[in-house]
């Protein structure tokens, strides 16, 4: 004879999770790609862009510093994505 559990008990974990978390990459390439992407992405966010890199000078390749700084980061991020796809890290 089975007894139905109330909904709040069903959610507790004798209902142990069926699968491990997919939020953490399980392969080495996946971990490298994730860390590289996240670090580069954070450098393109506040407080960096509003703080030390929020400037016009020095000019880099003929464009203002902040614009050049972000452009380089965005290109690097694209590089990480392409590398990750090539290494089948997704």
């Amino acid at each position, binding site marked *: 004879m089975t007894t139905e559990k109330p*909904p*709040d008990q*069903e*959610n507790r974990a004798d*209902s142990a*999770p*069926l*699968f*491990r*978390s*997919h*939020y953490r990459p*399980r392969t080495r390439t996946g971990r490298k790609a994730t860390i590289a*992407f996240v670090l580069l*992405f954070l450098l*393109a*966010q*506040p*407080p960096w*862009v*509003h703080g030390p890199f*929020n*400037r*016009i000078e020095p000019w880099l390749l*003929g*464009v*203002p510093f*902040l*614009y050049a700084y*972000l*452009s380089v980061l*965005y290109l690097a*991020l*694209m590089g990480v*994505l*392409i590398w*990750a*796809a*090539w290494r*089948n890290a*997704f």
Partner: protein
Amino acid sequence: MQPWIISTGLIFAYLALALILGALANRRLQGGLEDFLLYGRKAGFVMLYLTVVATYHSAFAFLGSGGFFYTHGIGFWASGGWTVLVGAITATLGCRIWALGKRFSYITPADMLADFYESEAVRVVTALVSVVFTLLYIQVQAQGLGYILSVASGDQIPFELATLILLVIAALYLMAGGLRAVYWTDVVQGIWMYVAVWGGALLLSYRLFGGPLQLWRRVAAERPDLLTLPGPEGLFSPGMWLGMTIVLSFGIILQPHILIRYYTAASARTIKLLGATTPLFLTTLFMPAALVGLGGALVLPGLELPDRIFPELLFRFAPAWLTGLILAGATAAAMSTLDSILHANMTVLTRDIYQRYWRRDADEQHYINVGRLIVVGLLLIGFLLSVSSNQFLVILTTLSGSGALQLLPAVLGVCYPSRRLVSRWGVLAGLATGLATLFCTLVLWPHPWGLHGGVWGLLANWTTCWLVSARTAPPSRATVRRIHGELESFVYGR
């Protein structure tokens, strides 16, 4: 011949091409809802690439971005970040959505959420959120189209008529050829818009300043406030930068017209490659927009509608034939998104509401015809919205993205197995809280403490979702095993 006739004529020539493609697509229809709504799930890499980039970039990119650089300066280069993030989301989340869609024959976003959360209430709420917030995005395109044609014609064609003409044409080829017509026109539109925006920006920068590098130097000398944060009007504070990054990446991806595209890919490899390479197009399209907006701020200061800066500069400083070609590219940008939104909303309303609750057992041709009627209704709503206000295109897009963003906890709960499962009540409570918070933080007290209202909504949504999910029943083990098991197998081969 008057310049406005040449430039307007070229735009109409482009529109004729779009109608021809729609008619050809109609002839190739293979019958059936899956062909009309999802291109038979056979979109190869090149076609999917161009349709995704053309759909993502719209009047917002062509006009709105120039207008935002014009008014708020270099802060809009945050757009590079959110477009790169779109690529990452596509490669990871998009791939999982594709896998589930293929395995379980999903057609709409609500199909996926209703299946996992075992809830018709989730289906209905998802469908309504998807449709309501993309109506604002229809307004963005309609408004943009109105600007383009009215400026190109030297205001010979008034804004309202211009909007209506272009809306009708987009609706016609969509109704004729379904998603096939949308994809075929997107291929042309994607290429045309990219070439047009780069060509136009470079032409203007050379003609007005002697080149892009000289343009940057002039801006630094005359308007240095445009080259640092938070910009002349203080908009790009840290909270707004972060908020727009989240809203305009996740929020746009979760709108049905992008999410449905993931279902249409021919293979997982197509989606992964798509995610890795679409930023090359999406991000670099904002570079010429910066030249247009920043240069325009020096040449035409005090413009009443900054979103018109690109067509205004072209009309004054470029030959008429080139203005026409470039503005046809702008038209392409707006129509490529508009037709996708109309198609997606048609799909959602037909499948998730009409077919489910009104008439279950009709034949597929009936649903296709109902879809066509829905397109007419959406067109009317879009037209009325566009003529009733003229808010910044970027602001409307951000509002639209903020609403769709509220689906993120639910979507992640399906696509990312984790130790804590999200429940249907968690989803519903989270959505309700998120949307109520959105109303408070976008309308009543906009962007409290400088953080974008969409992010506040998401925080409230997620917190509620977690708390309620912890106290309510998750999906059944059978469903979790079926759907999360499919993902485990797809991603890790187990």
